[in-house]
């Protein structure tokens, strides 16, 4: 993985010193809250309901064991012994004290981490496919691109005061595991059909929040070398023409929608033509230097199927089920990409204790070339595990409560912190996730239902990606109580779709019943091997709406 050079190191250290001084000036009254707020947000410090919150960037979701151990230490020393992994592959601490933030930033800098641009109206932490570099369906590793964009966008003077926040995601695979169509810019590495050269397909104007939109393709095949100039052209059009008069209409998706994708593309291409590409694009040597950090580790030559693994599976059905559900094929024979579920039944989705972080760090060091990933679905990944080591890993995870075999299933729920922590939330999310998990706790039943993504947001800002959940749940306030709106048919993959509302909002205690009814319609109507989302697409919303209305009527 990428290692800081002297410039990265100095940049991050200088930022720690700057923010330390800004905190001191805030505390001695030299800075008002209005002056300080944009500064703290640029460094990931929010004020939440009960305390401050610190959002730490995990660039494109990649960590090493030393970094995860440092996060565990920070959680223990300065927080409450746990952290929350987010849908943007970041980590949030819910209880830091402002006076401690400079020390925390210093500890992060010690392990080449920071909180820069995890908030504010700037280009945020770039996200990527969590199976980058290992997925069988990958054309090219997206991490060198993500790292290049991170370096280009960090403290970019022209793009530090955008109309609104700006999120970029990158994938290099056929299957989209990075939700690129719900990002301001989504990049997909693909081969040109004629030249077979690797290019970027570029989508702009995706996003969730109060106006959910699927990104529009503005370039089918951009040569790799032109990336930064093309991004600069997009950012320039947005920076100049994006609305600043209304924060709810300030995202680039609104601009793309208002002027149309065609006109937006025309303006970007016109700007791109005027730019001096060579002065903006990465020097090929620098691009190669970055890419070299992501060279594959020294894999062993192994048989495609591990006899050790097969024997352990045969002797232990619970282990076999976990392997089946939580591992993904690896491009190298004899290896697997292992997803560690942070969704044990009844826990807050995405939360991990410092002890759990240390265990996962140890496992990454011992079994996965010292590397791990954070997924946008709020789980962790050991990307390079020898199949024969899976049994030992499963045992150790089980002792720490981390061996849930539910990845991609109904209890693998994405949930924002909601009103249990977040100052913006209108309703709670975590207890809804917990109630649904409890209802569907039986693992055999989960497997019987098959792949089903439930995503919950505690407000219209949609941090829980509810719009693109197969079943989406949005928490709102209705006449002084929490109310939950259910959507159906969303999709966060390459078949991206926004879910449709099924009916009136429900009280919290009615939500599990409603999910149950929706699932029952699917189970009754599905054909052989048909997944939930395929079934919804085939039979349409009507039968689900009818079942949902029964819940709503029963509750009325």
């Amino acid at each position, binding site marked *: 993985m990428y290692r800081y050079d002297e410039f990265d190191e100095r940049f991050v250290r200088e930022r720690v010193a700057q923010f330390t001084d800004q905190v001191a000036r*805030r*505390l*001695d*009254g030299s800075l*008002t*809250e209005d002056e300080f707020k944009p500064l703290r947000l640029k460094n990931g410090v929010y*004020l*939440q*309901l*009960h*305390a*401050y919150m610190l959002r730490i960037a995990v660039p494109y979701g990649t960590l090493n064991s030393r970094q995860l151990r440092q996060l565990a230490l920070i959680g223990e020393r300065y927080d*409450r012994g746990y952290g929350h992994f987010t849908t943007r592959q970041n980590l949030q601490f*819910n*209880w*830091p*004290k*402002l*006076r401690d933030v400079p020390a925390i930033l210093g500890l992060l800098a010690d392990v080449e981490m920071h909180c820069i641009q995890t908030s504010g109206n700037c280009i945020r932490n770039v996200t990527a496919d969590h199976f980058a570099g290992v997925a069988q369906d990958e054309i090219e590793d997206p991490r060198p691109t993500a790292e290049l964009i991170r370096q280009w966008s960090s403290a970019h003077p022209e793009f530090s005061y955008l109309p609104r926040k700006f999120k970029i995601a990158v994938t290099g695979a056929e299957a989209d595991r990075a939700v690129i169509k719900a990002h301001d810019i989504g990049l997909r590495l693909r081969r040109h059909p004629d030249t077979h050269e690797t290019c970027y397909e570029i989508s702009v104007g995706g996003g969730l929040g109060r106006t959910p939109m699927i990104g529009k393709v503005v370039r089918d095949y951009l040569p790799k070398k032109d990336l930064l100039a093309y991004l600069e052209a997009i950012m320039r059009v947005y920076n100049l023409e994006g609305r600043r008069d209304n924060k709810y209409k300030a995202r680039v998706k609104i601009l793309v929608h208002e002027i149309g994708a065609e006109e937006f593309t025309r303006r970007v291409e016109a700007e791109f033509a005027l730019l001096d590409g060579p002065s903006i694009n990465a020097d090929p040597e620098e691009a190669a230097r970055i890419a070299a950090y992501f060279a594959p580790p020294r894999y062993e030559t192994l048989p495609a199927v591990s006899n050790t693994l097969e024997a352990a599976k045969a002797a232990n059905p619970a282990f076999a089920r976990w392997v089946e559900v939580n591992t993904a094929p690896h491009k190298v024979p004899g290896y697997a990409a292992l997803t560690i579920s942070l969704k044990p039944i009844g826990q*807050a989705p995405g939360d991990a204790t410092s002890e759990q972080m240390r265990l996962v760090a140890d496992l990454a060091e011992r079994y996965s070339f010292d590397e791990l990933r954070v997924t946008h679905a709020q789980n962790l990944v050991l990307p390079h595990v020898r199949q024969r080591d899976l049994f030992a890993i499963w045992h150790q995870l089980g002792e720490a409560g981390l061996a849930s075999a539910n990845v991609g299933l109904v209890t693998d729920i994405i949930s924002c912190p909601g*009103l*249990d*922590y977040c*100052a913006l*939330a209108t309703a*709670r999310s*975590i*207890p809804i996730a*917990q109630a649904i998990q409890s209802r569907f706790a039986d693992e055999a039943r989960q497997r019987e239902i098959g792949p089903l993504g439930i995503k919950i947001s505690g407000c219209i800002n949609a941090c829980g990606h509810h719009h693109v959940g197969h079943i989406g749940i949005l928490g709102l306030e209705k006449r*002084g*109580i*929490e109310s939950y709106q259910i959507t159906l048919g969303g999709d966060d993959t390459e078949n991206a779709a926004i879910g449709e509302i099924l009916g009136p909002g429900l009280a919290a205690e009615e939500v599990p019943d409603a999910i149950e009814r929706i699932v029952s319609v699917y189970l009754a109507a599905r054909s052989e091997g048909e997944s939930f989302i395929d079934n919804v697409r085939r039979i349409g919303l009507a039968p689900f709406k009818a079942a949902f209305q029964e819940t709503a009527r029963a509750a009325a």
Partner: protein
Amino acid sequence: MAAQAKRVPLPAILLANDLLDGDVVFASADAAGPLAWTRDPALALVANDDAAAEQLEGFAAAELRGNKVVDAYLVDIAIESGSPVPRHFRERFKTLGPSNRPDLGKQAGEGIASAPKG
């Protein structure tokens, strides 16, 4: 806080977050004593009339200016078992802590002098 904004219905209490720690704090006063901040919602001073509410608003403005607290605002409450309880669920969570973690926050006795220790 927006002092000009329409005031919440009374009775009300004043809450804020401590600038340094971020903890939720409440304006409190001993009998006829000066206003001060407490972390215990049970000790919050309840404003039952406009004069008391104005006093809380004045305190909020001064303490915001003085860089002691952030996000200070009045919250309408009901008296339950002798203690002020916010009428809105959002602020009720603010006086308790995360509902999924009863071991954390004020509900676990954090910052509350009268809470059993350990």
